[in-house]
């Protein structure tokens, strides 16, 4: 079992497979659909938050406008599956739709990123926000294409592919977790690679990398595109879940959600944002079921973390664990 301590692809892939398999078994042991829904949501939002953490945790760039890519992924998938291409593509529709979602989000991230990374600190943050809100305004204005503030209405078909029927709850559950786990494993390899360490170097000391003949800007752009494409993937999964895409996903408050998750779970540990997504989802479900004052409770919880723990939960746990 010593190979589990080696931080490499084989270990990560193995762990990923174990997790996926465990959750599949879990599905059959605990048939409560509410819990399955939560697990799915945690992975989708977790992907979204982890993608943002590439920028915040590893690169040290606070992006306020990250939901733009989540929304672009969702709308791309939705619009594609509502189009007539589905008729001719049949079973290939969903894989192609998801690939398109990631591709379009990457391109969008490249276009926005190349402009934003020229700025530092708060100006970078504000520019990403400005771009997101501009995209939001465009989505609202193009009512005939996007449905405006109503979002994509009327649903869309989910043709089965490779024996997977996303209309069936179990298939959707297994598929979502599978895609999420693969993405997380791949992301882990990237983060633990020289590229990933380059990001940390940029975060910790902006001058040193350049002195080593390192291109800051190229690294930042690639990281930005990577983050945007994973956010787009998360968005496409969300769109599949809700059979639609909503303008709210392009509004600035959607960008605040992964920020909360990163705060709650921690930005210094790789899986911190995923844990943050778990806390956020549980809080969401529990609080809305018991009180009207969700904002009050969420606000107080965040205050506690900001003033009290001062770290995300996973960061804090690992910190305590390592102190022994």
């Amino acid at each position: 079992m010593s190979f589990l301590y080696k931080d490499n692809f084989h270990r990560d892939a193995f762990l990923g497979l174990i997790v996926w398999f465990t959750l599949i078994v879990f599905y059959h042991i605990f048939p409560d659909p509410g819990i399955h829904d939560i697990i799915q949501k945690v992975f989708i939002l977790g992907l979204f938050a982890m993608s943002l953490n590439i920028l915040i945790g590893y690169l040290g760039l606070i992006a306020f406008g990250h939901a733009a890519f989540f929304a672009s992924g969702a709308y791309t998938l939705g619009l594609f599956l509502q189009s007539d291409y589905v008729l001719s593509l049949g079973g290939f529709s969903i894989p192609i739709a998801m690939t398109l979602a990631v591709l379009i989000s990457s391109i969008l991230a490249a276009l926005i990123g190349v402009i934003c990374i020229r700025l530092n600190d708060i100006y970078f943050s504000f520019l990403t926000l400005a771009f997101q809100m501009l995209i939001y305004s465009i989505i609202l204005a193009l009512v005939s294409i996007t449905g405006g503030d109503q979002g994509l209405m009327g649903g869309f078909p989910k043709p089965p592919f490779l024996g997977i029927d996303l209309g069936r709850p179990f298939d959707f559950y297994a598929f979502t977790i599978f895609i999420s786990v693969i993405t997380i494993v791949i992301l882990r390899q990237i983060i633990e690679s020289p590229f990933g360490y380059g990001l940390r170097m940029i975060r910790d000391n902006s001058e040193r990398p350049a002195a080593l003949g390192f291109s800051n800007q190229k690294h930042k752009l690639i990281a930005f595109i990577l983050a945007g494409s994973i956010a787009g993937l998360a968005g496409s999964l969300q769109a599949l879940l809700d059979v639609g895409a909503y303008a709210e996903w392009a509004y600035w408050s959607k960008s605040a959600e992964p920020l909360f998750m990163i705060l709650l779970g921690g930005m210094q540990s790789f899986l911190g944002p995923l844990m943050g997504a778990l806390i956020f989802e549980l809080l969401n479900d529990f609080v809305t079921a018991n009180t009207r004052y969700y904002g009050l409770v969420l606000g107080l919880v965040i205050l506690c973390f900001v003033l009290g723990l001062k770290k995300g939960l996973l960061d804090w746990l690992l910190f305590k664990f390592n102190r022994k």
Partner: protein
Amino acid sequence: MEIFALFDCIISPACLLTQAAGGLKIGMLLFLVASGLTLVFGVLGVINFAHGALYMLGAYFSWQVMSITGHFGLSVILGALGVGIFGILFERILISRVYNAELLVQILLCYSVVLILDDLVMIIWGDEFLSGLGVPELFQVPPLFIFDAIIPPFHLAIIAMSFIVGLILWFIMTKTRFGRLVRAAAINPKMLEALGVNINLLRAGVFMLGSFLAGLGGALAASVGSVVSGMGSSIIIESFIVTVIGGMGSISGAFLASLIIGMARSFGAVAMPLFTDGLMFMIMVLVLILRPQGLMGKKK
């Protein structure tokens, strides 16, 4: 896009002046609020995302005073002062803890306060919107016609008030000892402390001033509009746009930017009524790309 409508408007004095007057009013009210935001950032280095919530409190506080006293002027002043005092508490209890923390922590702290206040006002004042303060008797008169432009006297009063407040702010910041200390604190707080200045008092004072301005904006907005939870969310985005365009920390920049945004809104409503917000964000994007420090900001 109704480009012809815009063109027709610009060549007609009545239209040009009326829309410009409207844009001036929008801009001036925005300046009142945004100046507080940029002041706090410039001096304390804090991006007070709760600024819109303070604006909302200004509306609620002034409504409360109005319901007790029925006096407009008193309601506005006491309402704004109330928010100023709240600002001191907010700064001392919460903001002061995160001065040296990361940007993300500061933003989330402020945002959590927004969430809390939005619900708190509903718990205290109920969840229905409240009626506005109402324009004082003095201003319940027909609008004025100046060179064919239609301008309500109350708007002139708001424009004048904001302008005067701006002047007073400028005077405080440049001509008084407090202002000099505040500007020095922005550059080198440690030195100031070593010289025996009570930095905490200074910081609280600045935050109080910024909050007062937000509250004043809210109280004035409440004079011609309903008071409701969440009313800060629209003003905070606009305030940020103004602050960014004008230059973070620059009050004169905020003034200029507010005018630009006010005019853009007013004429944008003629040219592209369905994309006015988009226009605001486009301007923000352009400024950040071409001149990130803002129109009057200093390049770091």
